[in-house]
């Protein structure tokens, strides 16, 4: 191996400290939780329900909002219009807002006095304290991850390819689905995972919209408040492990989808 300079050793040391900073609390939590406490928490119905609620609502919120976010991202990548920077600033705004403030803003919008709340109320739906309200809170704070990742992906697709598709007879819609979208697949998948992860981990906005039904972060907070650190720790560990498994699974599925997309476009017909 090459002889490293002092500079490289300093960089290595600083990098190790950063990694240690991330790993130490997590490892501390693992070592401070006994197997008995952990399995008891896993079997706890309330914990299971909150984890399931968190995952399912985060996933559905991401899925539903992606139908709006992805076309919007294409628009942002392809067109210049007056006020585009302001629109981009609006997209990024939820990331920099204090999430409790985002929750308050959203509450005004979806409560029975708010615009959306009143509309929902006409069909007998109260968004506050409801999984739909939780989905709104999750999407509000995480949507920019999907929009920005997709926009970068669309921007990287040469406009000429889209023009070529239309010159070959594709309508704008066909062009979008056969050229723009497949070429942006990786960015969209990455944005999808980021939005899902961010939504899943949201606490500040959700706790204002819906303390009940309890999502996992709210449940952990409540256990910590009522019973203290040692009681909140096993639930936290369980949620972190579930999140890890989910992310590994998503990555595997996403890679497999990418591979099958590539396979589909390589010579199967030729050999037929």
């Amino acid at each position, binding site marked *: 191996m090459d002889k490293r300079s002092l500079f490289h050793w300093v960089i290595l040391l600083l990098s190790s400290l950063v990694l240690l900073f991330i790993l130490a609390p997590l490892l501390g939590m693992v070592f401070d939780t006994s197997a008995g406490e952990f399995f008891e928490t896993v079997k706890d119905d309330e914990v299971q329900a909150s984890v399931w609620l968190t995952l399912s609502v985060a996933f559905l919120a991401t899925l539903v909002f992606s139908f709006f976010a992805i076309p919007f991202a294409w628009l942002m990548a392809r067109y210049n219009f007056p006020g585009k920077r302001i629109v981009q600033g609006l997209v990024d705004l939820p990331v920099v807002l204090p999430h409790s403030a985002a929750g308050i803003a959203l509450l005004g919008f979806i409560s029975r006095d708010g615009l959306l709340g009143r509309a929902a109320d006409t069909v007998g739906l109260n968004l506050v304290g409801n999984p739909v309200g939780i989905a709104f809170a999750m999407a509000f704070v995480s949507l920019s991850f999907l929009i920005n990742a997709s926009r970068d992906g669309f921007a990287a697709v*040469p406009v000429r390819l889209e*023009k070529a598709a239309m*010159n070959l007879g594709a309508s704008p819609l066909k062009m979008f689905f*056969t050229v723009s979208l497949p*070429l942006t697949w990786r960015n969209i998948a990455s944005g999808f995972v980021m939005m899902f992860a961010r939504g899943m981990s949201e606490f500040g906005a959700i706790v204002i919209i819906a303390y009940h039904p309890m999502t996992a972060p709210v449940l952990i907070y409540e256990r910590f408040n009522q019973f203290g650190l040692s009681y909140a720790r096993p639930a936290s560990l369980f949620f972190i492990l579930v999140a890890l498994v989910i992310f590994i699974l998503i990555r595997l599925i996403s890679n497999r989808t990418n591979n099958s997309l590539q396979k589909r*476009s390589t010579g199967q017909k030729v050999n037929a």
Partner: protein
Amino acid sequence: MLRLEHISKTYGDFKLRDIDLEISKGEYFVLLGRSGAGKSQLLELIAGLRRPDSGSIFLNGQNITSEKIQHRKTGIVFQDFAIFPHLDVYNNIAYSLKIKKLPKDETDRKVREMAASVNITHLLGRKPGGLSGGERQRLAVARTLVTSPDIILLDEPMASIDTALRDDVRRLLRKINSSGMTIMHVTHDYQEAVRLAHRVGVIHNGKIMQTGEPDEVFSKPVNKFVARFAGIRNFYRVKISCDKDKCYARSGHHTYNVASNGYGNEGLMMIRSDAVELSTEEFREHNCIRARITEMNRAETGYELYLESGDKYHVLLKTKDVQKYDLRTGQFVFLLLPPGEIRII
């Protein structure tokens, strides 16, 4: 077949100005121009990728100015080929057929026929990433031809191709044209125009300067810009006077005998570099000028010489002539500018 009437379009500081053009069915038309002259923009207007600010485009008598891109029947092959990177060669060619929802067996037959006609059958299963420039171009042409367009628009088709492969591409384009396909090809390369075109046009600063058969355009250029495209490098601003049946062009340094042909009082005199003769002995004819060689460079088929005698001259010589006269920089030689080779515009 294709007719452009008073087409204008502004792109920031650049403007396509009042373009009139007509291309007949089965014709191979080459539009020549420097980069930035407006060639590609004109193709994009014809293909419908952009709309003109004013003017009309007719294809087979039908006004297609506002027609959607996908309904125009104008197939464009982009300079960078715009091959879909996520599709293999087969699916790139099949793209338009799948859009039209043709039956699978018909799609398969057409793709294979088209691939065979441009010699890329062996590449059908390959991803575009591994293809050479020539292969990518054949693919782009096949992908466009399979749509059965009324006209093919080629944007600098040789620009991304190795010089060695250009002959193959030219042969392919001639073959496509001889099958009856109308082609409009834009390029900056005069040689390409000479080798391929039935008719040429020269575009400069967004305006078409001249159109006609290659011989006509390059032997009778209407202005200095077109003349430069034809490879003419010797230009002299002259005052013309005629005495009975003889005419003279005075450049300020020399008086040249020119064929009497009803010129005005002033003009731009020009002569092709390969029409100027050179000797170490004085010519006993009109327009013999003693000049000093200021520079000698290797050229494609011999040497190019720069000479000076008040006026400056550019002369192309074969290698054997350079060796015969043992020419060197700084040497004085005699030039002959035959009056019959001189043009005045």
